[in-house]
C-alpha cells in the first residue's frame, strides 16, 4: 500500500531525507512498523494521527492514508 507520512517538528527531517513523503509499505504494516521502516527512533514520536484522528502506534493504516507523526517535546 501507499501511505503519506508527514513528520512534525524535529521528526520531519527524518521523513523528508527519504526523498518524498509518499511511501510504499507492506499491507500488514502498523504505524509502529512504518516508523521503524523509516528508521525513526520511536521515542521521538509522541502522538500519531491517521487522516486527522489520533490513533495508537499499533493502528494499521490503509492504502492512501495520511499519517502524521508529532515529535516528542518536553523542553521548558
Amino acid at each position: 500500500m501507499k501511505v503519506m507520512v508527514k513528520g512534525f517538528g524535529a521528526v520531519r527531517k527524518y521523513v523528508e531525507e527519504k526523498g518524498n513523503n509518499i511511501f510504499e509499505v507492506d499491507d500488514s504494516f502498523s504505524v509502529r512498523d512504518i516508523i521503524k521502516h523509516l528508521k525513526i527512533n520511536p521515542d521521538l514520536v509522541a502522538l500519531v494521527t491517521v487522516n486527522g484522528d489520533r490513533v495508537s502506534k499499533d493502528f494499521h493504516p490503509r492504502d492512501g492514508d495520511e499519517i502524521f507523526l508529532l515529535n516528542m517535546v518536553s523542553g521548558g
Partner: protein
Amino acid sequence: MEKAIVNKLKKSSTIISGPDGNPLAVLSLSERNRLCRHFRLSPREVELHSLEAGIVPLRYLKNIGTLSIEGQRRLLSSKVAVVGLGGLGGLLVELLARVGVGGMLIIDGDRFVEDNLNRQILLQEKDIDLIKARLAEKRVRDINSAIEVEKWEGFVTEENAQHLLSSVNLVCDALDNISSRLLLQSTCEQLNIPLVHGAVAGFSGQVTSIFPGDASLSVIYGDEGITIQRGVEVQEGNLPGTVGMVASLQAQEVIKILSGKGAALRKKLLVIDTERGEIRHINL
C-alpha cells in the same frame, strides 16, 4: 469599614472615557498606595475593593475591554503556581504579574547557568549562578506590587507536591522532564485543579489545558513504561522565540480559565512548528 473604603475609593478615583466610550472610574497607583497606608490594607486588598466597587486600577485599564472588571477581579483573587522558572516559567511569571494574577507561588530549585542566556528572560549576564526563584520573586514584585508572591527554592517531589500546591487554584507546567510533568498532573488531579501544560524543542512547541479527569499528559507522553525523560530538545535545544510563543499561549490559557473568558484548550493539544509556519490541533 467597607463603606468607608468604597467612599474613599470613589473620592480617590478619576473618571475617564472607558474602552466602550462610557465614563469609567480609575484608580492610579499613587492613589492606591495612599489608600493602602490610610486603611492599612495590602495593595491586593485595595485593588480588589476597587474592582468590586467598579473602579479599575489604572494599571489594568488595557485588560478591561477584553477581560471585563469581573474577569480582572477573578484574576486578582486567584493564586497560580508556576512550576519551573526556566524559559517558559520565567516569561509566564512576567506575563501573569503584568496581567494581574493576584497570588503566585513560584517553584524552582535551580540556579541560572550560562547556557540559559539565550532564552530565559529573567536572566542577565550579571545574574549567572543566582537562584532562579529569588530572581523571579524580585521580578514579580518589581512589576506589580499587588501580587502576593511566595517562592519555593526546591523541586516538586512525590513527598511535597500535594502540600506545596494545596493553596493554589491552578498550576502551570513549565518543567523540562516528563516524569515531573506526570507528577504535576497526578497532583492536580488529586487537588481537583487545572494544569496548563507547555513544552518546547527547537522550532516546535505544544500547549494544552488539563482538567481533573482528562489525564491528557498520559495520552501525550504515555504513563506506563516510559523509557525517556526528555524529548527532541536534547538534540534541537530551545530557541527563544519558541519559548516565548509557548509561554505566551500558556499565559492566555491561565487568563481564560481564571477569568471565565474564551474557551480553554481542553482535550486539545495545540502544536506549532514555526520552521514551516504550521499550527494544528490534535484531539486528546
